[in-house]
Structure formats: C-alpha cells, structure tokens
C-alpha cells in the first residue's frame, strides 16, 4: 500500500468521525440563486441535514417607495406602484387608485370598474401560471413551464393590447382607466377604448388557459416525485399563518377561506359567481393546488365579466390638478400574492403626507425563520418556492 492510499484512508476516517459529531455549519443560500425569485439571502445554521436556525437577509431590492411617494404627485405614484410586484403590475395599481378615489369621493364609471376587474384577474392568471410552471421546475420537472408560458404570453398580449405594457401597464387613472391614446398632443382627443375583438379574444384565451390547466394538472399531480416532495412538507397551521400576516393563497392553503374579493367591495366582484378554494393541511402541495383552482376561478370571473361588460365612460370627471382632501384611508385588495394595501395619509396636497405600502410577499416570507426551523436542507427549495414571493414585493 502506498503512502497515498494510507493518506486517503486516513482522510476517510477523519471525515466519518467529523460527520458523526455534526457540528453546526453555517450554510449560505443566495442572494443570487434561481430558487430565490430575485435577490434573497438565507443564512442557515445546519446540524447535519437539519436546519436549526434561519436568518433571511432582504433589502437588496429596496427602492424606498414610501419615501419617494412623499415627493411625488398622486398620478405619478401610479408608475411606482406598478413595480412592486412586477409579475402582476396591473393588480398593484388597483388598491392605490381606489384609496385616492375614496378620499376624493369620486364615482368611477361602471365600464372602467369592469375593465379593471378583467385586467386584474388576467394579471392573477399570468402570475399564477408563472408560479405553477416554475415551481415544478425548481423541483426538477421542466415540461410544465413550456405549457404554461405559452398561455401566459397570450394573456400578456391581451393586457398589452389594452394598456400598452406587458408588465408595467400604468393604465389606471384616478377616477377610472386611461381614456386617451398617448403619443403627443394631436392624438389626445382620440378616445381609446378596448381594442377591437378584445372581448372575443379574451374569451378564447380563457378557454385555452382552462385547457392548459388540465394538461398541467395531469403532468404535475400525476408525477409521483412531485407529490412526494411536496405533500406534508412545510406545514403552516392556520393560527400561525394569521399571526404572521400570511395572506392570499398561502393562507387559504392552511384552511382559512378568507378572500378580500368576497368581503371588500373595491371592485364589483359581488356580481360574479366564483368559489374560494381552500386547502386542508397547509403544506406545499396544498399551496400549489389552491393556486391551480384559483386560475380556474379567475377564468370563470373573466368570462362572466366580458359577457356582461357595460358600455359608457372610462373615467370620472376629475380636476386637471389632482388635490386630495385631508384624511386617511386604508384600502386593501386580494392580489395574486395576497393582501396588498395602501394606507394613504393626505394633508390636502397633491401628494400624500405618508404612504404605507402593505405588500403581500413581505409578510408571507416573514414566517420563514419559524417555518424553516427543523426542516431538512433538501426541503428548503420546495418550501421557499411554494410561498410564491417576488422580491420586489418584499422589499418595495
């Protein structure tokens, strides 16, 4: 036996004894990692395969919107709030607009409210399609992505056709939606409504979305590996979820059937029939399946809304210079990621005195230190992905 062999054997023995002692090791995950959906860093202490402590480090995307809002006028803030959760930019605008309209006492025309509702639900479909296809990818299944992104592109094309933007529509105006085509003063008089054929194309797109959901359900839920890796993993009990402010599909997966679309009247949801899917166990699998069902319900709402779309004005009459009366209001909305709300404090000026932005992902991942403690290292990616967060929505 050569010295080299002896040395190798010696090393092997050493490494075995080290593994048995299992001292705490600090494991760094991110900030640049595909599973973190942006720049999230987790500093984990691991004892063997088990995580004993996690410290999430956020703030890499912090843009200070709450401070910026104090030096912007209300119409300008629309462009900022688009960029909070960029996977569903349109939905971010809604609670902000409704908050300003409440303070000003504006009556938004019915057609504008319906257009808002349709585009919000389409943003939800687009956001959930990204989650439903990228989450299996993180667990090793690449095929669903190809199916979902094709349909998502069609939905985004429709949003772009109306608003001019795929991700950052900046389409809402205080008192309604953007009524005039842009591009210079000569075109300002040309009133822009929904593009021709939008309603029929939307109905077709929804049929396609429903059929791709069926395909994907076969692909993913029929996949034994996927089910094994998600069932019973990352359990969040209902009381924990409430205490941490976990909202949206993550909360409903834990068995709490709370949906702001059913309780608050920020858009005319009460006129449409839809169900609120609820999970039983609060594990990663439930969080996945709840979003599956939510896409189907969203498509159901969109089809009902385009069938009953009223005609009429697109924007209420508003002053040229928007001044908001003194007062404070909190308006929340059921966004794809959960409760998104704006607490607007006005002192009567053209911009808010203080704007507090409540974003869903921030609270949703604030549960991570509690949730990841005691979990296995290979489950971390499964749990992170199942919460469906966007770092722009965490950091604001």
């Amino acid at each position, binding site marked *: 036996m050569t010295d080299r062999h002896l040395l190798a054997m010696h090393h092997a023995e050493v490494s075995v004894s080290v593994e048995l002692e299992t001292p705490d090791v600090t494991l760094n995950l991110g900030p640049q990692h595909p599973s973190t959906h942006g720049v999230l860093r987790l500093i984990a202490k691991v004892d063997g395969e088990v995580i004993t402590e996690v410290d999430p480090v956020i703030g890499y995307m912090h843009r200070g919107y709450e401070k910026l809002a104090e030096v912007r006028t209300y*119409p300008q803030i629309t462009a900022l709030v688009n960029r909070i959760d960029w996977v569903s930019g349109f939905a971010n605008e809604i609670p902000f607009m409704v908050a300003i309209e409440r303070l000003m006492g504006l009556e938004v025309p019915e057609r504008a409210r319906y257009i808002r509702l349709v585009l919000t639900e389409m943003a939800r479909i687009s956001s959930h399609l990204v989650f439903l296809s990228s989450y299996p990818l993180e667990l090793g299944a690449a095929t669903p992505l190809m199916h979902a992104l094709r349909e998502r592109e069609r939905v985004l094309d429709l949003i772009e056709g109306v608003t001019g933007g795929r991700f950052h529509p900046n389409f809402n105006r205080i008192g309604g939606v953007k009524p005039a085509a*842009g591009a210079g003063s000569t075109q*300002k008089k040309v009133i822009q409504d929904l593009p021709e054929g939008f309603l029929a194309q939307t109905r077709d797109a929804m049929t396609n979305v429903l059929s791709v959901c069926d395909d994907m359900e076969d692909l993913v839920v029929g996949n034994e590996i996927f089910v094994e890796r998600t069932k019973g993993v990352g359990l969040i009990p209902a009381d924990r979820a409430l*205490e941490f402010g976990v909202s949206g599909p993550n909360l409903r997966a834990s068995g709490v059937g709370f949906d702001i679309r*059913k309780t608050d009247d920020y858009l005319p949801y009460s006129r449409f029939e839809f169900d609120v899917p609820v999970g039983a166990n609060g594990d990663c699998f439930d969080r996945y399946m709840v979003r599956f069902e939510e896409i189907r319900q969203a498509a159901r709402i969109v089809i009902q809304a385009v069938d009953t779309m009223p005609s009429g004005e697109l924007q209420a009459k508003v002053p040229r210079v928007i001044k908001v009366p003194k007062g404070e209001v909190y308006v929340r909305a059921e966004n794809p990621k959960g409760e998104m709300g704006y607490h607007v404090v006005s002192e009567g000026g053209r911009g808010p*005195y203080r704007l507090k932005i409540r974003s869903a992902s921030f609270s949703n991942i604030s549960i991570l230190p509690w949730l990841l403690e005691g979990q296995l290292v290979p489950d971390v990616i499964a749990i992170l992905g199942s919460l469906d967060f966007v770092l722009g929505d965490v950091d604001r």
Partner: protein
Amino acid sequence: MTASPSESGAAQVAEKYAALVGADSSSAEFGTAKIKVPAARWVEVHRTLQAHLPFFSWLSAIDWAAEVAVGDPPEEGVIERYEVLSRLSDVTTGAGLIVSTDISKDTPRIASLTGVFGGADWHEREAAEMFGIAFEGHPHLTKLYLPDGFVGYPLRKTFPLLSREVKPWPGTVDVEDMPSSENAEAGDEPEAEA
C-alpha cells in the same frame, strides 16, 4: 361613492372595539375604522383584540412634523409626535381595524408586539430603522432593509431625499399649474398625462 366603503359598517367596527378595549377615541372616516389607545396599553390592547381580529396585517408609523425636508408640510397646528399604527383584521367578516397610539419624539420608544403577533417582528424592525423608534422587548432589533452602519432614519420628515437635493427631479415640471388653469375643472378634457 367608489366601491361603496360601508362607512356605517366601519363605524360599527370602530365603536365595538373601542368599547371592548376602552379606547380613548374612535373614527371611521372613509370606511377606515381606527381606534386610539394610550402607548402604555399598546401590548395589552393587542392581546385583547387578537381573540377577535387574529390576522396581523401590518405595523408602521407616521412622523407628524411641522417642518419637513421633503414634500408639503401638514396643515398648521400639528402636534409633534410619532404615531404608531397597526392594522388587524377578522377573517370571516373581513372587518378591519387600525390601532393607533402617539409617542413623544424625545423618547421614541414603545413595547414590542412580537410576544403577541410573531409577524410584528419584521414590521417593527422596519419601523425602527426608518423612524428610529425603539421597540422594547424585541428579540433582535437589527437593520432589516438598510445596510449595517447606515446613519439616519429615512422616513423621518427631517431626512432629506439626497438625490433630490443634488438635482431637481425632471418630473417637477408636471407638477406645476397649467397656464391659466386656476380652479380649472377639466370639464371634457381628459386628465393631463402624468
């Protein structure tokens, strides 16, 4: 009224919980139920409310200041203080409530809610670094967003927006009044592009 914020519903919510915890005052303007409690009872009030409003939505603060480095100052007669706010919600009826308290600027400290709502952890860390409020009893009140060693409290009204100091924002041009548009209501004109 947009999205009919049931003002009467909010008033009922505000009155009900104001009576339950013995609040100083309650309001329900613009459909936003809010109660005011003394800072000394902050934790106790939340512990009582948790049984009725178990969903912890957010916690933040407002810097009420007569002199501001950014934006417009508030109307005259403002009392210098930090207002700390938390928002709780019910998950069956959807009733929501803002709990508010005032703390002095000389001693900006208040008891931490982390023992009641686990979710208060990050919200308090954010409010601490942005407003310089000490949350007593918080297990690790370190910086959340800002880099370690950052000096100042960005959301205080005395904190200037440095980029704006160096170079005026080009967007300010939109903010100025249109010529001869004093009190002009845009009758059939669409709103000016922002």
